[in-house]
């Protein structure tokens, strides 16, 4: 197996820049037509009306992915009161690929909404398109996986991801890598089996199946319970569609979803940035302009959100 570590990558890259710079632009700029996802890819439909916040999914992910011990036991519900330094609720991290958060909703008979969160496994992943060492792969089964031996820890994908998913592992300062949910690809999805979190959930909050079938199921649930569900499957169209999709009985913006994200894949926005990526080692200023553009786009989206409505 070819291993590229950070140093040899930098060395090789510097030696090869002259060639790369001359050819890359035209090749890359044609690679951005819409893709729409593999036809038979799998997905997960998450129905928040069923979640009771037991955190079994978090525990299952921790075990399946061999993640480090959590700070608190998985049956400790005080995590729902945690607020991070930035005033936000808990987020996915290099130690937790999935997180359940609690949202208090006024006048909801069933009490608060619990929202499970992990990588959405986009049909056209911004993390993938933004990664200049091609560490990411969208598999035909629908998972967005990555090769940590190729990752150079530049964190472009962290900035590019519209859902703020990839986390950065600081445990190895020499070779830091990105960490995120891989839809249990290596151990389960590859063999046609459902992700560990899906299987662990007592309430069957998550339905695993072909993405196209899940859309049917989601629409059928909405149709047969129009008074209960919001008439929208989040992720069916957002950013070009995602493998993980969501049903809710409260408006999505009240439970932390970005509802102004649009249906265009993020790739369309990073296209111009991408054409310069192969030249990245000769044009550092351009690279950082790219970072800046991506960061700004997300900021702009955030600011578009109507305030109030709490």
């Amino acid at each position, binding site marked *: 197996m070819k291993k590229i570590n950070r140093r040899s990558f930098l060395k090789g890259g510097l030696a090869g820049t002259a060639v790369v710079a001359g050819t890359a632009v035209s090749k890359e700029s044609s690679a951005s037509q819409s893709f729409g996802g593999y036809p038979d890819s799998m997905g997960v439909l998450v129905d928040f009306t*069923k979640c009771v916040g037991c955190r079994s999914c978090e525990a299952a992910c921790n075990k399946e992915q061999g993640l480090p011990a959590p700070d608190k*036991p998985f049956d400790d519900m005080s995590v729902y009161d945690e607020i991070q330094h930035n005033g936000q609720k808990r987020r996915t991290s290099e130690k937790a690929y999935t997180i359940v958060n609690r949202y208090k909703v006024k006048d909801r008979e*069933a009490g608060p909404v619990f929202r499970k969160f992990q990588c959405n496994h986009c049909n056209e992943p911004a993390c993938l398109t933004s990664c200049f060492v091609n560490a990411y792969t969208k598999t035909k089964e629908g998972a967005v996986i990555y090769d940590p031996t190729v990752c150079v820890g530049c964190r472009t994908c962290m900035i590019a991801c519209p859902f703020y998913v990839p986390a950065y592992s600081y445990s190895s300062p020499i070779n830091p890598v990105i960490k995120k949910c891989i839809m249990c690809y290596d151990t389960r999805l590859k063999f046609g089996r459902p992700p560990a979190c899906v299987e662990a*959930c*007592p309430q*069957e909050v998550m339905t695993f*199946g072909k993405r196209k079938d899940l859309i049917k199921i989601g629409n059928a649930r909405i149709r047969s319970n129009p008074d209960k569900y919001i008439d929208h499957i989040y992720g069916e169209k957002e950013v070009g569609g995602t493998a993980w999709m969501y049903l809710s009985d409260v408006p999505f913006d009240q439970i932390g979803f970005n509802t102004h994200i649009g249906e265009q894949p993020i790739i369309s926005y990073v296209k111009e940035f991408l054409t310069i990526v192969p030249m990245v080692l000769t044009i550092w200023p351009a690279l950082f302009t790219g970072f800046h553009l991506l960061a700004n786009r997300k900021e702009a989206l955030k600011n578009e959100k109507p305030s109030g409505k709490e």
Partner: protein
Amino acid sequence: MTQVRKKIILLLITLALAGWPAAHCLAESGPESATLDRLANLYEAVNFNHSAHVDITEGNCAECHHHTTGAVPTNPKCLKCHPGGQESDSMACQDCHSAKRFEVAYLTEIESNTQLYHIDKPGLKGAYHQKCMGCHQTTGGPTGCQDCHVRNEKGDEFFHAGNFSPAPVAHNGGH
């Protein structure tokens, strides 16, 4: 006149008697209790007190068994196809709600069988919990995981709880 009357009364009694088991969906012949041990890798088996739940539902089996016992379903949506109930060969949860809901064989079946109406039937674990919790939440029954499931050592390990609890995070570290 009296003869006819007698006959009608007799007929009514016969009908009532014949109808009795269907209307009460054989609640009396249901099991006293059932052992639920599918989660034995994390929890002790649950001894489900079936007869207590027959009392709680006032003998209306349809509350949990839908149409399968021959009782009229409580969910109006079911009535379109099963208006008077429809007794099934089996009324055990696991015979309709697959324990392998997300395995390839099941997914292939619901995709290839275009006649199948119930493409969104929860698997066994989901069916239990959605039914139990749905009712417990509205009727004040127990809703905590460990109110019904006693966690075993494997479960403690899985949840990083009990003897497997993480050491408290030190906030006075020297760096």
